[in-house]
Each structure stands twice: as C-alpha cells, then as structure tokens.
C-alpha cells in the first residue's frame, strides 16, 4: 500500500497541535470550504476508571460515575449549559464511553462564544445533594431504556462472561443501585483526579483556526490551571480464564441473538496497541465479513441477518473479539464460527481476502476524515490512545498477511471463549438445521 506517498492523504490527515505547560493538549484541523465547526473537549475518564489513588488515598467510585459526572457537568450555579448554548444556536451534547468522556458542540456561527461556553462549564464542577438526587432519577430512566435494547444487553452479557474483575463488565451508565451510591463528594474526587489539564484534550475541526482556539483557551484561563496532587489509576487483576462460558436469558425479541466472545491478552504500549487494534478489526472481517465463505453460507441458509458481524474491543487491560447478531439458529451458527476459526488456525488467512480487507479498511479511514464531527472525534480519540490518524494509516500499510497469521496463532482460543444467547421471551426452542 502506497499510502504515505499520497498527497491527498497527507493533507487530509494533517492537523495543528500544541501542548500547554500544564499538559492540556490542543488539536485543531482547519477544513477549508466547510461552514461548521465541531469541538470536543474530553478527558481520559470513562466507565472503566473506577479505582484510583488521589494523593495516595484510594477512591472506589460506584459503577456509572463517569457517565453520571458527564450529566452533572452540564449544570452550574447559574443554570445548565444547554441554556447558554441556546443563546448561540449551537447544538451541544456529551458522551461517555469505556475510556473517555467528551463534551461537544456543533455550530455554524459564533464559534468564539461557543468555545467560551464549552471551556467554561467543563472547568467549573458544581454538585449538590439535590442536583445529584434529581439526576439519579433521569439516569435511572436512561438505564431502563438500554435494558430494553437487545444489542446492548447482548454486548454487556458477553463482557460479563469474559471478565470477572475488569470494570468493562459493568454497564457504562452503571445500574440503578450503583448510581444511588454516588454523592457530590465522589464526583468532586473524580473531577480532581481526571478533569485536570494533563488528562484532557480539546479538539476542534472545521471553519476555525488554531489562533481562534488558543484565544478561547486563554480567555477561559486554562493555561493557569494547575494539576493538583497526584493520581494513579488502579486496575484489578484479571485472570486469563473467562468468568462464565455460557449464559442464556430471554427478552422481548423476534429471533434469538448470539454472541460468541473471545478473551485475548491486551498488548502493552501505544504502537503495539494500534497494530493489534487493526489486526483484530481485520481478523473479524476475515472470519465472518460479507466477503467470506462462512458469511455467504449462513446468509444463503437464512441463518443470519445482513448485520451479523464481528468486532474487536481494545481498552487498558482488556482485549476481546465478539462475533454475533440475530440468528434463528444460534447453536448452529456458533458451531460453524468455531469451525471456521479452527480452519483459519490451520490454514492461515486467505491472501486475496486479506488484501481486499486492507483496501476496505483504508477506505473506511479515509471516510472518517471527511466530516467535521468525525475529524474532531478522531483527533481526540487517537490522541488519547497515543497515536494520530496518519499513524493509523501508516500502520495499516505496514500490516502483512504474516502479521495476521501470527496474531491468529495465539488468538481466538475456544477455551477462552464465552457464548451468550438471548431467546425470545415467548418461546425458547431452537429450530433444527
């Protein structure tokens, strides 16, 4: 792959960056011709960051604290941030994932004012017993909404089966019970630990300049913010074996749903992580992607729906691959998936499919460089992981079939797999092939 020689790629992946003395990272991608601006102000604090030492004192936050904090950061003594954004017309939101929390806005005008709002409210935590209690009700309803999503339940059931200690096994929003234990004190401890400049980044893309962003950073007084005390993240020891090899439950769904999940050894270091992430992503496509013989067989037999697929998840201390989707014949599909993996273990990946899969991945990466929203999100996400969008493309270009075969040789072991099946609430009988 001649990615590095491509001028269009060089331009599309270029961006400006600087680091304040206190460690806050600023990433800016001016995009000529675009009207809008998308900004992401984020912290490396997600649902898996549950235990840490703050100035030597251990803090164990209840499951769902990062997400809870995301909701609460929108409030200040003067009111909520939505009210401030309403004056500019910007569209604002926030999201929490396993490993980060991000506050975002999209705007086509008054960008300076919007940056002031974003940098202002995220820098001024304000929590009281009353506001925390109110939020427990709203988030409780959010949790219940996700409880009715079969895809969500399937994913977390698979993670719970794979992991016995790693916090990835807990729902990002926690549970009604866990969030009931959240107090203003816990929230302040988390902001002290993770909403500190050295743990945060601001990424802005679109009709904007670095000078504009730096001016907003100055107005918000961010260069003067100091990192107080010390923070050390604590990860519980996670055994190599899976926690629970098989789980079934029922829901109000039309057809059964299957997840076949594999627990893998997470890589050490950013470079190894990037390569592992790409290799695993392509491996999933080479096992049951729509170009594979297995997908075709299952599709023609009516055993899977078009969205049946595999995906990889890589976090601090956790790496896994999960295959699944809706299927009327979960045991049958599971069996064929395991057979195909065994065949690939014996024969290695198909050379033609590998090349095509690489092509496909390249196209997907280029597509992610198109929209202001994706560009800003991609910049902050790759920065938090220790690389850049250009690194991703360069790494992709370097991956060989041999890399895939070597990874396959030590991965996807049935002994480290877990199976989850959701059956329709009304009946649970599997059709025979």
């Amino acid at each position, binding site marked *: 792959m001649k990615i590095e020689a491509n001028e269009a790629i060089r331009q599309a992946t270029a961006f400006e960056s600087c680091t304040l003395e206190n460690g806050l990272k600023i990433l800016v991608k001016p995009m000529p011709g675009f009207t809008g601006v998308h900004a992401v102000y984020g912290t490396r604090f997600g649902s898996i960051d549950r235990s840490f030492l703050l100035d030597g004192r251990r803090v164990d936050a209840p499951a769902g604290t990062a997400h809870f904090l995301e909701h609460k950061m929108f409030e200040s003594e003067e009111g909520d941030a939505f*009210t401030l954004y309403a004056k500019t*017309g910007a569209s604002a939101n926030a999201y929490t994932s396993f490993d980060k929390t991000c506050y975002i806005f999209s705007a086509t005008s008054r960008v300076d004012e919007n940056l002031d709002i974003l940098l202002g409210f995220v820098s001024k935590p304000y929590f009281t017993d009353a506001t925390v209690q109110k939020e427990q009700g*709203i988030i409780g309803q959010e949790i219940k*909404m996700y*409880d009715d999503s079969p895809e969500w339940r399937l994913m977390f059931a698979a993670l719970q089966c794979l992991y016995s200690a790693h916090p990835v096994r807990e729902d990002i929003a926690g549970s009604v019970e866990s969030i009931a234990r959240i107090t203003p004190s816990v929230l302040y401890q988390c902001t002290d630990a993770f909403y500190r400049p050295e743990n945060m980044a601001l990424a802005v893309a679109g009709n904007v300049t670095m000078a504009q962003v730096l001016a907003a950073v100055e107005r918000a007084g961010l260069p003067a913010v100091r990192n107080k005390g010390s923070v050390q993240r604590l990860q519980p020891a996670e055994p190599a074996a899976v926690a629970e090899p098989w789980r079934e439950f029922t829901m109000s769904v039309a057809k059964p749903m299957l997840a076949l999940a594999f627990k893998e050894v997470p890589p050490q270091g950013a470079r190894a992580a990037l390569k592992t992430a790409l290799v695993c992503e392509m491996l999933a496509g080479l096992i049951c992607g729509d*170009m594979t013989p297995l997908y*075709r067989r299952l599709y023609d037999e009516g055993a899977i729906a078009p969205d049946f697929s595999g995906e990889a998840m890589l976090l601090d201390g956790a790496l896994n691959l999960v295959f699944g989707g809706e299927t009327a014949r979960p045991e049958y599909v599971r069996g064929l998936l395991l057979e195909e993996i065994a065949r690939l273990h014996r024969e290695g990946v198909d050379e033609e499919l590998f090349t095509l899969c690489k092509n496909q991945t390249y*196209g997907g990466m280029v597509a992610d460089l198109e929209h202001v929203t994706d560009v800003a999100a991609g910049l902050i996400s790759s920065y938090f992981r220790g690389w850049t969008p250009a690194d991703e493309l360069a790494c992709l270009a370097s991956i060989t079939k041999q890399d895939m075969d070597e990874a396959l040789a030590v991965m996807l072991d049935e002994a480290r797999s877990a199976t989850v099946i959701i059956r329709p609430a009304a009946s649970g009988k599997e059709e025979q092939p």
Partner: protein
Amino acid sequence: MRGMPRGKGNCMDQRTSIAPGVWLSRLDADKFCRQRIAISFLWPARRETATAEALLSMVMERSYAGCPDMTQLSKKLARLYGAQLDVDIQLRGANRQLTVAVTGIQDRFALDGENLSRAYAQLALGVAFTPVMNGDTLDPEAVAIEKGQLREQIESEINDKRLYCLRQARRRLLGDAPEGIERWGYLEELEDITAEDVTAAFRHMVRTACIEVVCAGADADAVRDAVLHTLQGVQRAPAAPVPFRAVPAAGPGRFAEPLPTVQGKLCLLFTAPHVATGQDLAAMRVAVALLGGTATSRLFQNVREKQSLCYYCAAGYAVTMGMMSIDSGVEHANAAAAEHAILKELEALRTGPITDQELAETKRALINQIAAVGDSMAAREAWWMNEILLGTLLTPDQVSAQIKAVAADDVRQALGQFTLAVTYSITQGGAAE
C-alpha cells in the same frame, strides 16, 4: 416538478431534465473525501405491490448483471476501497422511493491512480437498471433467499421498542391510506410472492417512476449519457408523484400493548387539516422545535428535566402527511402523568405566552442546523430530495430566511391546527385495549 432556481446559498450546481421524467443534478463535492452517485426512482405507492417492491430492493442490493454473485459484488466493493452500495426503499407520503446509491472515496485518494468515479457510476447504473435475470425474470434463487431476509427484517421490528411504538401508532392512524403502506411490505403476503411478481415490480418502477440522479463528485456528463443510453430501450410512461396531503382526522383512539419491557413507551399522533408549505412550513418547524425539538424545548425542560417523567420526549413533524408526533420513554407507572404533562405543554404553547427569548433561541438553533446542511453529502442530498418532493426547491438560505420571519402568533397558529388522533403505549402488563 419545476426547474431549479440558482439563488444565493444554492447547494446544487445544476438540476436539468435529461429526458421525460428524468432529472440529473450535480453537486460540487471537492471538499469531501468521498463522492456519491444516487439514482432515485419515485412513483405512486400501491398497496398490492408493496411486498414485492420491498423484496425488489433487497434483490437489487445483492447483485446485478455485471456482477451476478453476491460475494463477488462484496469483493468488488472492497476492491474499490470499501465503496458502499445501498439500495433503500421507503414511503414518501403516498409515493414509493427506491434509491440506489454508491458512495466511495474520491479519485485523489486512490492508491494506484484508478478512475474510481467511473467505476462507481458503472456500478450504480448497473444495479439500478440491469438486475440479474434468469430468462425473463429476476433470479428465482436470489428472490427466495431474500424472502427469508425480508421476513427477518419485518419480524425484527419489535426489537427497537421506540420505533415499534411509533410505527404501531401510525398504523392505527393511517389504516388503509396510501401513506400507511408498509415500507417492508406484509408478512402474510411474503410466502406467495414469486420472482415474476418482483420482476413485474422492477419493470413497473423503471417504466413509470420519475428518476432523480444526483452526482456528487461523479462525472455527471458520463452518467447522463449512460442513463439516456440505458433508457433507450424502455417504453417510459412516467407518472407524476402524488403531492403530499394531510391524513384525514381520526379518533381520538387509545391503544395499549403489553410487552415484557423495562421502560414504557408513549406515542401521541396529531393530525392537521392541511400539510404546511412555504412560510407555514417554516412556522411549523419553529413550533415543533419549540415544543420538543431541542434540549431547551418545553417538553425537554419541563417534562423531563423539571418533572423527571421521562428519559426522552421529542416532537416531530411529518411534512409528507401533515402529522405531528410526540414520543416518549417513560416509567410504566408514570405513563399517565407524562401524557397529561405533554398535553399541558402543548396547550400552554397554543394559548399561553411565548417569550421573545425562547422564540429567538429556537429559530437560532434551527438556522444553525440548516447552515450545516452543506457540510454533509448525505444531508445535502436529503435536503434536495425533500425540496423536490415538496415542489418548492428552496435552498437552505431561503428556508433560514423564512424561519427568521416566524412570529409567536405563527407558532400558536401552527400548533392550534392539531387534533390528537392516536395515543399508543407500550405497557408492562395487563390486556391490550
């Protein structure tokens, strides 16, 4: 349909009639990393062919004469750097719209200097006009396989409870009206659909549909020539699309469906005597956004934030049938209180005060969203297709100017037209009403 004005802020470079009932539009896509060619067929919807038409879209997406094998087509797309082929079918008021679209990276990102735009155009045209035939009919084996997939598609509707509730409510409201024809057809008819039925649906579409070709970055001249060449042998008799019309007032009807869910759903549908157009449509957009379209709307602020009666509560306006919907995710026990609170907010907007500030802020939010349309290929195409169907062909700037002119009385008048027609809820238990 009329010719297109070339005003300020016009996002379409050119829309020209290239044959009776066939239009071609060019969109400048230089700033994007991808390009797209979309061919939309639009014809008056018919209840009796709805299932065959839905099946047609799936058969078309699977393969075409130039690449008759589904897996080979997947490989062809991968070779084109993961180009995406979508064949989508939907209802637009009382019209069917089937769109064949190919989206892929711009030629400048090709790593071996390939002419991708030509390949995308050939692919889109091939899928749109030359399906795989077995003699005089579409391939019966492909039809049989896709029947199984369509069955899954229809049955899986229940997996997404929010969408399911909304669709069930619409079914109660629309009954046998053409606007109520099922997008994916009817399960009870599926078994009897033959390859001949699907072939007839294809021929009817190509013969009678108005065709809109949108080239975003693709070589529009080459596409025009290819479309004209393809249609040379077709006896075309294009039928004008059915104008949008208001669904007749009904009810009020109340329906409750018990399902094993954690969170309840509530959907209210309102009818109006007319479909809003022109300046009235601008007023309607503001009114519905003020009621429940933003994070500072009355429903979000009062029903969710202040009363904690739901997790989400959103209002929407279907311009295709002059219908307003309000849907909400509620605690089962709070459903009645949420319904009462929603209706109270609607009444307060109809008859009570509207502050200058909230009106200005809502208008600002809408204008901000509209200004961003040009930053997304998908949004630009969707905007344009909508304007074509409305017959107004307004640019985003023109609609923004209309929105600026909306006054509080216009909002009251817009909401004052609505009559509650259907209340549909997903309940936890008990018998269906």
